[in-house]
Each structure stands twice: as C-alpha cells, then as structure tokens.
C-alpha cells in the first residue's frame, strides 16, 4: 500500500508536468526539441535525469552484488562519455542545426540512404535500451507489491506514452529536470539511512567480503524465472507447515513462479554458470567476466563501450539540440559531468550492503532489485517500508525519465526519417512504439538490465560514434564511407550478440570479445569509414559543410562595438548567417507543421 502511495505521486507529477507542456506546444520543433530555448543548467539536469536510467539507479548496485566491486567501472564509463562529448561533439553537433543523428547525417553528407540507415540504428539502440527499462519497472513493482510482472510493464508503457504523446519534448524537459533532483535525493538519503541503520557489524562485514555459503536466516526466494541449482548436501527448506525438509543433493530444476524458503544455517545452492557473491575475485576492482582470467581486457571493453557509446546515444544527442546555441550545448555537457559524478558516488554503497544483506537475490537472477530490497532487511518496521517506498519511487522516476527520451527518439526516427509525416503521425508513432516495446519486454524478464543497456551502448559506440566524430572532424568523409562504416559496426555488433546468446560456449579472451565486442567493432567501424572514404572522392562542398560546424553563432553580434573599416570590407554583420544557420531544419519543421 505504502508503495502505491510512493509510485502514484511520481506518475501523477510526471503526467501533470507533461500536460503543462501541452499548452505551449504548437509545432514539430516544439515537440522534438522544445523549440531550443532551454538554459544549460536546466538542460543538464534534464540530460542527467534522462540518462540516469534503471541501469544506473538499480542496475549498477545489482551488478556489484553479482559480479563484484569491478562493476563500479560502469558509472565511470557512463560519465566519461560526456567529456568526450564535450570535446568532440556537443557544440558542432548543435551548430549543425540538425534535429537528430539521421538529420545530421543527411545535412553533412547529403545521402538519403544514410539517413534511413541511421534511423534504423536509432531503432535498434532504442529497443535495446527501452526493453530493460520496462522490464525493470515490472520487476521492481512485482518485488515490492507482489503484483504480476506484466502489470508494471504495462503501467510504465502507458504512463510514458501518454505523457509524451500529449506533451512532447517541452514536457519531457521539465519532467526530466524534476526527476533528476528527485532521483538524487531519493538515492542519497536512503543510502545514508541504510549506512547508519545497518549497524557496525554489517558495515564491517560489507568491507570484508566473504563468500555467500550459508543462509543466515530463514530466506524466502521467489523464482519468477526458472533456474537450475546445484544443491549441496545438507540443504534444507522450510515447507508450508513450518517444518524443515531436506533437499535432494544434485541438480534441481526450479520451475518459474516457485516460492522456496531456505532454512536458517543451511548451505546455499549454486546457480549454474554464475559466480557466487563474495567468492574469490569479487573484491577485485576489475571486471573479470566469468573468471576467464582477463580482468584488464574486460574492464577496458566495458569502458570503451560506455564512454564512446554515450557520445552516440540518440536520445542524449537530441537533448543537446534543446540548447539555444553551441556554447550552451557545451556548457550543458560540462554541468552534466558534475551532476552525474555526484550521483555515481552512491551506487557502490548499495552494492556492498546488498552483498551482505540480500545475496540470495543472485539465486533468482534478480540482483537488479537489490536496491529496493535493502531497507526491509535493515528495518522491518515502518521506517523500512517508507524507505522501500521512496526507493521504489526513485526507481520508477528513473525508468520513466529515460523511457520518455528514448521513446521520443524512436518515434522521431519512425515518423521523421523513415516515414515522414506530421505531428499527429508523430504522436501515433509514440503510442505504437510503446506498445511494441511492452510486448518485447514481457518475455524479457530473465535479461539483466545492465547487459542489455551495455549492448545498446556498444551499438551506439560502433555506429554513431564514428559517424559523428569523423563527420565533424574529417573533411574527406564520404557518404559511401559513412554508410559502409555504420553498416559494418551494426552488423558486427549484432552478430556478436547473436553468437553470445545462441552460439557455442566460448572461453578465454574470445568469450570476452564476443560478449563485449566494443574493442574490435569500434575500430572496425572507424577503419571501414576511413578506407571506403579514401577510395572515393568527397563532394566539392564537403569541406565547407564540415568547417561550418565549427563556426560559432555569436561572432557577429551587432552589439559588439565595431571599428569602422574601409568600405571594401564585406559587411558580414548582414550576412544571412542567422537565417542560414538552420535553414534545413526550419524548412523541415515548417512543412511538418502544416
């Protein structure tokens, strides 16, 4: 009940702020980029609010519980991406005047085919990123309220698409800025409370990792997804009458939907193919996937994917277009680094406490819910319930905010790039896309939010990152080069994921490079772009198109006192720069607005 009280305000405020945006919205430009009048601080709060998804709010702590301290490298990569963005992409991208990455690709290289391919990439990234958000919404609600998984998924889909279809980006900006503050408070305050409330014993245990071998209490575990456990001799469960019942040692196929209560003090079954929380290597600050013995490669792979992927995430890039100019876009990126850095100081606290207090979540693969499961372990009275409610509200805010931005980009790609149409079609696309994502999220309960989101980052890093970096900084890039590079990146990453999911069992460094393909797919995409571009000739206007991205908008302010120069000087103050700055965009939006 208390949880309903916590989630309802988040949902209501989201919808209310969304409705407030409706009054001011008239055109596609309003809908997509809030007509570009958002201040850097508000915008960076919105960027951070949008960026801190379920993967950050819940996923990082869950990965720490499951894989170890090394998982704290994920947030480092998430933040580092904004520095690369600030240095390479933010201002020129904003100055291109393009609304989306496909728009940018067409404005810079003049290829309609590239635009459509870029729109397809947006769809792929959007799905990889949205499915885990909706899935986590369902999971969290089912953990804290005992409702079925699908209720949360459908609820999230309904709220997000309604807010967006009504209010668009103007609504999303305020919603996301509000939700950043909301999430920050709801993450930091419970973290402090947990640390204090847990007591010195748990705190000492938290920094002295030991393997999770015995249940320290009667522990009820709900298997939403089936699992195969290796039951050690002596394991006991508590049956319905309250008496102990010994489990048969050996493999145990647990059917989905089973609830088992393990008895106090009995040994813990092992999950096939997963490392036990707190086992050897858990305390190492590096990511050694599946204990293959290549911790450095694993860590670097994740860092490359997250850092370069951030630069290419379509919903983040679109956020920068809501800045009034390139300078504000750059400031937005810098402020975002600071805001994210504050937030990311805290997931580790939930992670190490979760390893001590809720290690049994690893049995069901639901470590993602560690954050919301913690307060009840520390305090089983009212305070625990209140903090569970607060964290649930924060988690809900996290996936609402991220889903808003992503759904906007996905529907934008459909109705702006693939099948051009007006504002009404854009709204229909929002609802259609949400319905498809909900359907995809329903059977995806077994996937880790962290895994799917990292895949989204990897796709972005191997497609849009080379496209943007070379498009902005290399004048010899040709449309053919960009097309083949993006295609190579997309095919290689998707192929790698398919091999990882359905292919043979791999070991050693090959396994890491298949599961985390960024170290080779990103160079592959860059190389393909460079080689194919070198084989052809850039268009005669290519250099002008590239250089214009670097010109700052306000260099000819009429308010700057100008010395009277000789009459031969061109009066650049009256060059049609402001009119030309985003002529392509204005033309598109004008036509769409009819």
């Amino acid at each position: 009940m208390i949880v309903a009280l916590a989630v309802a305000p988040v949902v209501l405020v989201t919808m209310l702020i969304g409705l407030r945006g409706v009054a001011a919205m008239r055109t596609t430009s309003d809908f997509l980029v809030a007509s570009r009048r958002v201040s850097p601080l508000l915008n960076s709060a919105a960027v951070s609010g949008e960026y801190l998804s379920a993967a950050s709010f819940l996923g990082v702590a869950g990965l720490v519980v499951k894989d170890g301290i090394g998982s704290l490298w994920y947030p480092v990569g998430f933040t580092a991406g904004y520095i690369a963005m600030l240095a390479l992409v933010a201002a020129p991208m904003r100055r291109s005047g393009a609304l989306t990455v496909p728009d940018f690709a067409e404005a810079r290289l003049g290829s309609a085919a590239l635009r459509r391919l870029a729109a397809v990439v947006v769809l792929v990234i959007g799905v990889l990123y949205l499915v885990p958000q909706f899935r986590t919404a369902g999971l969290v609600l089912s953990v804290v309220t005992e409702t079925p998984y699908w209720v949360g998924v459908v609820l999230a889909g309904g709220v997000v698409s309604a807010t967006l279809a009504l209010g668009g980006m103007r609504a999303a900006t305020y919603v996301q800025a509000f939700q950043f503050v909301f999430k920050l408070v709801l993450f930091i305050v419970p973290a402090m409370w947990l640390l204090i409330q847990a007591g010195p014993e748990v705190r000492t245990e938290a920094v002295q990792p030991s393997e999770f071998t015995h249940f320290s209490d009667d522990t009820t575990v709900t298997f939403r997804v089936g699992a195969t456990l290796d039951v050690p001799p002596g394991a006991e469960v508590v049956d319905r009458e309250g008496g102990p019942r010994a489990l048969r040692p050996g493999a145990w196929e647990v059917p989905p939907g089973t609830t088992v209560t393990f008895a106090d003090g009995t040994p813990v079954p092992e999950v096939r193919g997963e490392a036990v929380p707190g086992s050897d290597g858990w305390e190492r600050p590096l990511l050694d996937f599946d204990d293959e013995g290549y911790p450095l490669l694993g860590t670097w792979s994740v860092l490359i994917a997250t850092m370069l992927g951030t630069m290419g995430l379509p919903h983040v890039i679109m956020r920068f277009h809501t800045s009034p100019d390139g300078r504000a876009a750059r400031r937005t990126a810098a402020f975002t680094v600071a805001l994210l850095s504050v937030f990311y100081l805290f997931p580790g606290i939930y992670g190490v406490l979760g390893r001590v207090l809720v290690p049994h979540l690893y049995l069901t693969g639901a470590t993602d819910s560690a954050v919301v499961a913690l307060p009840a372990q520390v305090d089983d009275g009212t305070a625990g319930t209140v903090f569970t409610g607060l964290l649930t509200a924060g988690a809900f805010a996290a996936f609402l905010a991220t889903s808003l931005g992503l759904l906007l980009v996905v529907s934008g790609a459909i109705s702006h790039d693939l099948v051009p149409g007006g504002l009404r079609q854009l709204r229909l696309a929002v609802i259609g896309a949400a319905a498809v994502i909900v359907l995809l999220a329903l059977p995806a309960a077994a996937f880790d939010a962290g895994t799917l989101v990292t895949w989204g980052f990897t796709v972005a890093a191997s497609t849009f990152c080379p496209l943007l970096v070379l498009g902005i900084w290399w004048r010899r890039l040709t449309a053919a080069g960009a097309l083949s590079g993006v295609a190579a990146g997309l095919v290689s990453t998707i192929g790698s994921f398919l091999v990882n999911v359905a292919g043979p069992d791999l070991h050693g460094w090959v396994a890491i490079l298949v599961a985390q393909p960024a170290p080779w797919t990103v160079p592959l995409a860059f190389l393909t772009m460079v080689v194919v571009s070198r084989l052809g000739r850039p268009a005669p206007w290519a250099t002008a198109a590239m250089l214009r991205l670097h010109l700052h908008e306000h260099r000819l302010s009429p308010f700057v006192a100008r010395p009277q120069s000789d009459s031969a000087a061109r009066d650049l103050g009256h060059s049609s720069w402001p009119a030309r700055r985003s002529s392509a965009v204005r033309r598109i939006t004008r036509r769409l607005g009819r």
Partner: protein
Amino acid sequence: MTGRRVAVTSPQTRLAHARRRYRGPWRPTTLDPAEMPRAIALYREGRSRAVAALAALGALIFGLPFLLWLWPTLDDVRVAGVPVSWAAIVLVPFPAMVAMAFWQLRRAERAERDLLDADADQGIGADADADVETAGFGTVDKTTGPDKPAGEGAS
C-alpha cells in the same frame, strides 16, 4: 450560400501537398568564403583541444585499471576499513572528470572569445584571408558563397 470555408492555396502548394513530400530537396551546406579563415582557425584550435582532452581522459580510463591490475596489494591496504582499491574507482575518477570537464569548457570558451575579440579589432575579418593560414584546405569550392536563390536549379 453556405458558410463553408475553403482553403485557398497556390497551385504549387496544392501540388506539394498532393505529392506528400514534406522534405524539400536537399541543398549542400554553404560557407561564406570570407568566413573561411575564421572557421579554419576554430577547427584547428578545436582539434588540438579535443586531442588534449581525449589524451587526458584516456590516461585516466585506461591507466587507472592498469595500475589496479599491476598492484593487487592495494586491495589489502585499508583506510578507515575500506580497501584503497575500492575507494580508488569511486573517489579518483569522478573528481578528476569534473575537473577535466570544466578545464575543457574554459579552454573552448576562451578560444572562441579570443577569436571574437580579434575579429572586432580587425574589423570583422576584413582582410583576414591573407593573415590566416588556409593551407591544406585548397580544395574548398570558393563559389559556395551566400545562399543561392531557392529553385535556381529549376530555371
């Protein structure tokens, strides 16, 4: 006489609507030749700045895991009970990245301001073409000047 209102549009607009082609024909981006030198200067300055930023970021992102891998003993060294290596992946990268971001921001804004001041001093790039190095950009199509009138191609 009914009160029905009829949209009055030019035949061309009706044609455009009937074609349902909302996007106009694509036109190449243009750059005023007089603004070229400034654009090149900004591009070069931005490029060296970006290289410096990426080098610093790369050193942090790749160097820190390497150091932690090199010295596993850091796991056993504890400050206030917390292993140093745990603290190192939270308390080192984030402050360092915030510092890096604001260093970059300051450099970028100062570079643009300096160029703006230089323009004001010189009378908005009057003869700047002669001063600024444009070597390496010789292939620029100098004819891509101010906007060509729309529909030029149709004539």
